[in-house]
């Protein structure tokens, strides 16, 4: 009331404007300057008409409130400043670094779409094998050219699909589903790639040109030996030959055929031997497959002691000796 009286008694437009300015203190300097320029113009126009400012426009505070409300800058609106928690959050959001990161991150989205397509193929290979092979950066189920080609084809499908999903505007429920799928892809493929990493390293060090993953087993000039065929002195093929190394350990090969398709050899004690050659490949019913070396499921004699073998050799040697003596 007091204010009104004072103002009514010939308050200058300068005084009125000063009080509007102080009522606009909550605004940013930029907004306030711009608004006050308009206020100055307004007050001059009204002053020229020779009417009392407060009578015509209300108190400077009411004027400021009216103006900012109409301008969408109300005090409970976006330009408010204070020490409340949400203002701290806002200040963080307004910070130069936060803003530069926030504007930079969206530019990486296409790269993420490509990566997501790749990870989807990694996870897909795990449906077929427990650990995917990464061959020339292509996630595959194995090292063969067919598997490599399949991997490349899958990438050619998955990456464009992922990109098209990324570019599309999705409904809220669809977006939620995408977030779930993304999380699963990241977790599963991350787990897979951490495990596959060591294998790829080994492969590259051992066979940099082939990308082949070395395995234990018998090799000839670096190629895995899959089967062994044995002939006697007359050239007759031998079957059920068992091989042992210098330590008496059975010599086995990586046949490349699943065990259930290899004919089983069981000795008289029911112990299966896996070092009986040649290996015979059978079909699902256990029937030997024509074209392979064929022999029936055999019962093979228990092994004699190595000492006995040496005795045999001695005996053979003495036989030879006798033979030469007889010739003489």
């Amino acid at each position: 009331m007091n204010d009104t009286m004072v103002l009514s008694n010939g308050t200058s437009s300068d005084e009125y404007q000063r009080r509007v300015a102080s009522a606009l203190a909550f605004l940013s300097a930029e907004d306030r300057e711009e608004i006050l320029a308009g206020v100055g113009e307004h007050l001059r126009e009204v002053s020229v008409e020779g009417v009392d400012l407060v009578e015509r426009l209300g108190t400077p505070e009411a004027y400021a409130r009216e103006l900012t409300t109409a301008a969408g800058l109300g005090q409970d609106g976006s330009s408010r400043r204070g020490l409340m928690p949400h203002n701290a959050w806002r200040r963080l959001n307004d910070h130069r670094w936060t803003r530069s990161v926030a504007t930079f991150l969206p530019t990486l989205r296409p790269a993420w779409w490509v990566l997501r397509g790749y990870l989807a193929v990694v996870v897909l290979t795990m449906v077929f094998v427990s650990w995917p092979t990464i061959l020339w950066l292509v996630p595959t189920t194995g090292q063969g050219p067919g598997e490599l080609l399949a991997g490349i084809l899958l990438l050619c499908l998955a990456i464009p699909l992922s990109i098209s999903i990324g570019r599309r505007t999705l409904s809220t429920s669809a977006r939620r589903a995408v977030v779930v799928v993304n999380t699963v892809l990241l977790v599963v493929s991350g787990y897979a790639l951490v495990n596959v990493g060591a294998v790829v390293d080994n492969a590259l060090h051992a066979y940099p040109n082939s990308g082949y993953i070395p395995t234990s087993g018998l090799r000839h000039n670096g190629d895995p030996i899959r089967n062994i065929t044995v002939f006697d002195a007359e050239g007759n093929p031998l079957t059920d030959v068992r091989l042992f190394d210098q330590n008496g350990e059975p010599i086995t090969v990586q046949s490349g055929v699943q065990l259930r398709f290899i004919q089983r050899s069981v000795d008289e004690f029911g112990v299966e031997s896996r070092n009986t050659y040649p290996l015979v490949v059978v079909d699902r019913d256990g029937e030997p497959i024509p074209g392979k070396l064929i022999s029936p499921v055999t019962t093979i004699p228990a092994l004699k002691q190595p000492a006995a073998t040496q005795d045999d050799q001695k005996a053979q040697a003495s036989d030879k000796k006798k033979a030469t003596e007889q010739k003489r």
Partner: protein
Amino acid sequence: MDTTQLLKGVLDVAVLAVIEQEDGYGYDVVRRLRAAGLDDIAEASVYGTLRRLFHSGLLTSYVVASDAGPHRKYYGLNDVGRAQLADSAATWKQFVKTMNVVLTKESAA
């Protein structure tokens, strides 16, 4: 009924309509609205509305030097503003029509 409450809801379209007739500066818009019959208009809110419409991209703005006194900031409609005005005017006319039907039924009942 207090017309100032009604006016708040339609001040945007009123300001746009005035500027469509002819470009104008803040006080010029106030004067033309008053002359059109909106005596109760809150002048400060016209300035606030002009600023908001300008920042929303509905208005163009240019400064004109005046012979007697300071420069004046003129506002004009751009295409967005014109489209907004057409839309708002149609909404308003439909609203008035509906209100008339409602009020007619009220008095008939």
